[in-house]
């Protein structure tokens, strides 16, 4: 064993000499002090590894010196052994209180002395090893936290560009510095429809953030292009399945709110039951996950079937991850489904529900340590957003985009069932500078025309069905059945644009393989009821808006063709 540096302090030089001699002979390096004060000074100077102190010394006694030495040593373990005699039982407790680790009896027994010195030295070494490891872990942990904070910051940049601040959304996300695995995204489609996704990745920190980033990118990118829940959720699943290791996945609920049609489509996979609150009746409808979480199944097996809802103004979805159910009170009980259900049903009115839930969970948790990932969102049905006013300033010079062009695009039965052509078509239209500022209106018109052609034309579904809640469900069931059975039919889209840099005219022509309808009779009836512009039976909900945007909307042939003409620039409202 290497020489141990030992500081001894004793005012009696006979004792000091004997002790020093014994320790030296045992291979140690000895530093001698004649009182406590000198001991403290020499401790600073020589950094001894073990200190032996006489209790009663002039100038500064052993207890005082021990206190000061322990203070100087701080976290470093410096064993302090008091030199005393068996008979000095008085004040032993004082000695321990002042930081002494042990006693050594006078007269000294070299064997005992050596054993004690070595055992304390080993203890000191062990302590140092532990401290070194602790420091390494602390540094490691600091790095990890730093990385996770960086991941969270990157994620926040990607995620916080949406429309979570919209008037019809309320939400709560844990303000943890580290990414907790929960994701809440919301954005508007060009049509004004709104997509909202609440996701819960397995794990925390980096592994969870890795999946969250492409999820957010896909969500925002596709929403901006006009994709709805079905396409987005499929794309996200496919991406997550590709990049996440087996065993990692994302439980999610995604809602698409269509304000024009007063309807919503919902996909749920792996999240606990969420609710739809009907403002009118005060009823609470339970929505249950009917899919595996995202990132589990490959694209071939993935199921994108949706739950469809017909809504009234003020109806709202209440969505959460499992964090809220698993929030614990100081006694360790979980908040749970029952309490959540009670809070919602007991709320004074619909607008208070979100606040009440937040408040109840907060009160329930009390001062319990909050490590839960509580993510909670409410999205309500409201009136459609105001159509954006045309910004004339956006119209650019004549030659900056395509002005004279046309195309024809026909979708057969296979494509119709699972492909949405609108984003592609919108992409072409957006090349025309004068149309760019009308993207929302254009999308609405195209979406209306396409769904009429496909659902009423090709599939032959009756739009009257949708006017009652039961019929609404029936409508979507029939829709899916007919898509599954579809082996014939087409929708043909023709577009034609002409213009100069200052104005232009877009003609959109849809034709479908359906039976059509007696549009002449319809038109006559409509003329008779001219005052009633928003005739529900004739038009469906989208048509008033169409008439507002289009110069003309005209049915042709047997009613299976419709032509809309859109002129730009439009007058500002």
């Amino acid at each position, binding site marked *: 064993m290497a020489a141990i540096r030992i500081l001894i302090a004793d005012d009696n030089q006979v004792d000091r000499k004997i002790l020093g001699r014994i320790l030296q002979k045992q291979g140690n390096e000895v530093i001698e002090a004649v009182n406590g004060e000198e001991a403290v000074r020499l401790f600073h100077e020589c950094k001894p590894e073990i200190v032996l102190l006489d209790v009663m010394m002039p100038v500064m006694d052993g207890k005082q010196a021990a206190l000061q030495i322990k203070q100087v040593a701080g976290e470093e373990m410096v064993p302090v052994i008091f030199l005393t005699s068996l008979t000095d039982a008085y004040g032993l407790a004082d000695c321990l209180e002042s930081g002494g680790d042990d006693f050594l009896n006078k007269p000294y027994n070299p064997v005992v002395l050596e054993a004690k010195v070595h055992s304390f030295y080993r203890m000191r070494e062990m302590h140092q090893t532990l401290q070194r490891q602790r420091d390494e872990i602390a540094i490691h942990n600091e790095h990890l936290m730093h990385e996770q904070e960086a991941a969270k910051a990157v994620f926040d940049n990607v995620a916080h560009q949406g429309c979570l601040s919209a008037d019809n959304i309320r939400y709560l996300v844990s303000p943890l510095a580290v990414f907790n695995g929960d994701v809440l995204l919301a954005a508007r489609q060009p049509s004004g429809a709104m997509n909202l996704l609440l996701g819960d990745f*397995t*794990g925390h920190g980096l592994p969870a953030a890795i999946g969250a980033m492409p999820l957010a990118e896909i969500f925002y990118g596709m929403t901006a292009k006009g994709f709805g829940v079905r396409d987005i959720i499929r794309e996200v699943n496919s991406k997550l399945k590709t990049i996440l290791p087996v*065993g990692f996945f994302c439980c999610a609920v995604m809602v698409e709110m269509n304000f024009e049609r007063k309807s919503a489509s919902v996909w749920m*996979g*792996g999240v606990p039951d969420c609710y739809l609150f009907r403002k009118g009746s005060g009823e609470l409808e339970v929505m249950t996950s009917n899919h*595996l979480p995202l990132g589990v199944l490959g694209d071939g*097996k993935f199921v994108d079937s949706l739950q469809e809802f017909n809504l009234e103004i003020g109806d709202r979805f209440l969505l959460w991850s*499992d964090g809220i159910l698993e929030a614990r009170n100081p006694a360790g009980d979980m908040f749970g489904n029952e309490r959540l259900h009670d809070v919602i049903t007991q709320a004074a009115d619909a607008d208070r529900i979100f606040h009440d839930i937040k408040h109840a969970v907060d009160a329930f948790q009390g001062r319990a340590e909050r490590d839960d990932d509580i993510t909670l969102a409410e999205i309500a049905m409201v009136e459609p957003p105001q159509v954006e006013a045309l910004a004339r300033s956006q119209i650019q010079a004549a030659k900056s985009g395509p002005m004279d062009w046309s195309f024809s695009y026909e979708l057969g039965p296979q494509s119709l069932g699972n492909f949405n052509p609108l984003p592609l078509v919108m992409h072409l239209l957006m090349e025309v500078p004068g149309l760019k500022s009308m993207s929302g209106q254009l999308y609405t018109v195209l979406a209306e025309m396409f769904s009429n052609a496909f659902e009423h034309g090709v599939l032959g579904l009756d739009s009257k069905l949708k006017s009652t809640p039961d019929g609404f469900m029936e409508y979507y069931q029939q829709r899916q059945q007919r898509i599954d059975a579809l082996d014939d039919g087409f929708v043909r889209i023709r577009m034609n644009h002409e213009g100069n840099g200052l104005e232009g005219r877009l003609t959109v022509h849809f034709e479908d393989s359906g039976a059509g309808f007696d549009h002449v009779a319809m038109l006559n009836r409509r003329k008779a009821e001219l005052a009633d512009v928003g005739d529900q039976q004739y038009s469906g909900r989208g048509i008033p808006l169409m008439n507002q945007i289009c110069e003309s909307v005209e049915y042709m042939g047997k009613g299976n063709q419709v032509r809309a003409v859109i002129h730009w620039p439009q007058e500002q409202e």
Partner: protein
Amino acid sequence: MSVESMVSGDGQELTIQVSGRFDFSAHQAFRDAYETPASSGVRKFVVDLSGTSYLDSSALGMLLLLRDHAGGDTAEVSIVNCNQDVKKILAISNFEQLFAIQ
């Protein structure tokens, strides 16, 4: 938490029993249970959760890993003897679409 595994007499079936909380702390033990050399001829995997009080999302992840190990879409993995809480968690995740849950 403890994980025990047992191969049937004919070597065709491996039963893994998880007791207590089935969460991330079981990760290594659960993996070891099906990656043992004794399981090389196993065709059918049974996860017995009779002693499991709770499972979290990382446990669901482990079940997916086992399924992957057992052959993915062709895997024969059944989950048996779940209590109500466990059954509910499996149901929320729609795991009955991937596993035979009894």
